């Protein structure tokens, strides 16, 4: 990590340690939003940090935002920070309310159909939606419903109409850019989920005794965990590389896509890879970590189920995995 990443990481680590216990996560369900936690984040400059400095924001680059996103994931924090960071960066003139988080902005990751964006991440709580309507990147403002359909991951998702007040998108921002940033930061939060889930599972295996010794002393259990740290580290490395590609994209548009030489520096390819891989890793790690906590892990009182459900929710909200793989194949191998 760079010095800047390190400093931001420590700042958000202590914030979430202090303000976001698993009780906070639990109490925010089923909507999945804690307004008071979100309000406290403004003191750190959290909601504004992705906006360019010239527009009154923190001017953070994607590699720094990825660090923040991982901390959100580790805490399973019931705040729309990733969606807001990405959407607010795309606006031509984010208002003071957006910079302070008093108005939440989000990204409709799937194109609108018949005038509606369906199941928009943070759609239940966001006033500003950035998304694609009739092949154009648009921003729209309307009152959020503040209610979500009952869902797997207690996510504040909702259908939203494309109708509303126009919100100008920055001239130099294209949908690909918004979409890639959302994938990379969401991937980073999935890495955070997986990291914390592994800690929970391993911690339990150290403390839970059966047959007179900790279950973590049994090789069968050890080997069930041993493949997982490499998955989490690999996903984090891939997210960092994708964030690096996004940060350099502005200045150096020449990129490589050569999967047959294992040279891929293109931001779109790497963002898709990072999102697909982090999704898979978060699902696998939460699955294993829950299993080794036995019936305690399966019970609602356990924390691991909070992570298990979000690992699936934050992965699937974007679309189906097979479809995303086909889109990646088009980027890597050329469209058919």
């Amino acid at each position, binding site marked *: 990590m760079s010095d800047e990443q390190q400093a931001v990481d420590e700042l958000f680590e202590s914030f979430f340690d202090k303000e976001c216990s698993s009780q906070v996560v639990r109490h925010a369900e089923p909507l999945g939003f804690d307004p008071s936690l979100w309000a406290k984040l403004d003191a750190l400059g959290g909601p504004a940090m992705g906006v360019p400095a010239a527009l009154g924001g923190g001017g953070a680059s994607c590699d720094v935002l990825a660090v923040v996103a991982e901390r959100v994931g580790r805490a399973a924090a019931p705040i729309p920070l990733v969606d807001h960071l990405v959407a607010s960066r795309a606006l031509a003139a984010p208002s003071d309310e957006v910079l302070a988080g008093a108005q939440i902005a989000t990204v409709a990751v799937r194109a609108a159909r018949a005038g509606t964006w369906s199941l928009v991440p943070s759609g239940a709580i966001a006033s500003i939606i950035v998304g694609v309507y009739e092949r154009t990147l648009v921003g729209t403002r309307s009152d959020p419903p503040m209610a979500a359909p009952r869902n797997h991951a207690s996510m504040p998702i909702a259908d939203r109409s494309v109708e509303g007040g126009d919100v100008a998108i920055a001239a130099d921002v294209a949908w690909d850019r918004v979409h890639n940033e959302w994938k990379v930061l969401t991937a980073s939060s999935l890495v955070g989920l997986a990291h914390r889930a592994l800690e929970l599972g391993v911690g339990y295996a150290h403390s839970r005794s059966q047959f007179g010794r900790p279950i973590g002393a049994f090789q069968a259990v050890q080997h069930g965990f041993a493949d997982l740290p490499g998955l989490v580290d690999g996903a984090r490395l891939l997210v960092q590389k994708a964030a690096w590609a996004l940060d350099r994209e502005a200045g150096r548009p020449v990129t490589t896509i050569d999967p047959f030489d*294992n040279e891929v520096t293109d931001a779109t390819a790497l963002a898709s890879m990072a999102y697909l891989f982090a999704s898979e890793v978060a699902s696998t790690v939460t699955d294993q970590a829950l299993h080794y906590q036995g019936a305690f892990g399966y019970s609602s009182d356990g924390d691991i189920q909070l992570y298990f459900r979000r690992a699936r929710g934050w992965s699937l909200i974007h679309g189906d995995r097979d479809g995303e793989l086909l889109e990646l194949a088009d980027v890597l191998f050329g469209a058919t």
Partner: protein
Amino acid sequence: MEVRQLIHDNYTLEEQYRVHETGTYNCRPLYRALGDRGFIERAIPGLGKGDPLELWALFNEFEKVDAPGDALSVIIILAGILSHVGSDEQKARILPSLLSGRSMASLGYSEPDYGSDLASITTRAERDGDSWVINGAKMWTTMAHEADWLVLLTRTDPSVPPHKGLTTFILPMDTPGISVQPVHTMGNERVNATFLDEVRVGPEHLLGDEHGGWSVLAVGLSFERGVVGDTNRGVSLLRRFHEWASAEGLMAQPAIRQRMASVAIENEVSKLLTQRSAWFAAAGKLPTVEGAMTKLFATKAYQHAVRCFHETAGPEGLLSFGDDRAAADGWLDYFSRHAPACTIRGGTTEINRNTVAERHLGFPRAR
């Protein structure tokens, strides 16, 4: 890139034919060319003068085109061990021949009865004045029939706990009493059994401290696992499969495209994990845990990919090199034969899982 060009120029069709016929995975002209241009020296952890990722870059280029890196990896492991624990005299006597690509080496670790449980090996080195007399047998001594140097793990003190009574030696292959018998594998490789009969060695052959063999072993294994091989094989697999699938008109099939995209992701992750291990080694640290993580991920992903692609090819995937009808010119048959070795050699999956479980996750020793 220069390494790629050197491989292309020196790993000729004749050399490729010889490698696949004999199962001896080396290439002397190529190693000499690499050595003459300083690529071997630059790749040695602790000796490196160039980019810290030289070691990774070198093996990455080999694996991309299936060039024979087995012998080179042992050269680098031995040179790495020497640079960490060798005496000045040994470095002066042995390193130049390794770094110039003129000499090859073989690792005498495993035995017929002890593989993963290396601490229990029984090849005996008995003290006789200021020298030792060695008797025993070593297995899987790849390259022993071509090598100039043999690294030997021996038992010098049977009266103490197993890993405390081990000593490592480095001796010339022409030392009297050494004999080599061929052993062949399903993947068409020649490995060997090496026998030691009253082999007499002096203090100049001692590698590291007497009874310090276990830590010498750890130095070598930390390079072997997840740095110098078997962690980027999916690149060549994907390239050769794509060439075949394109020629067969299969690239429009969604299931094949999805599988290939998944393999491309796994290749990228394997590369990033391998680069991380290489960074650790280049920084003078032993990437024991990082190497284990890398090898666990990369080898399992590779084996799964080989199986999927082989199944896609059907009967033509069974045909070997030299048959016009063979899928991917016979490479799928070859990869499928070779893949099982990746989770065995250089530390099995189970040993690597023990390493991660104990050293990274803090679980108690379960053996």
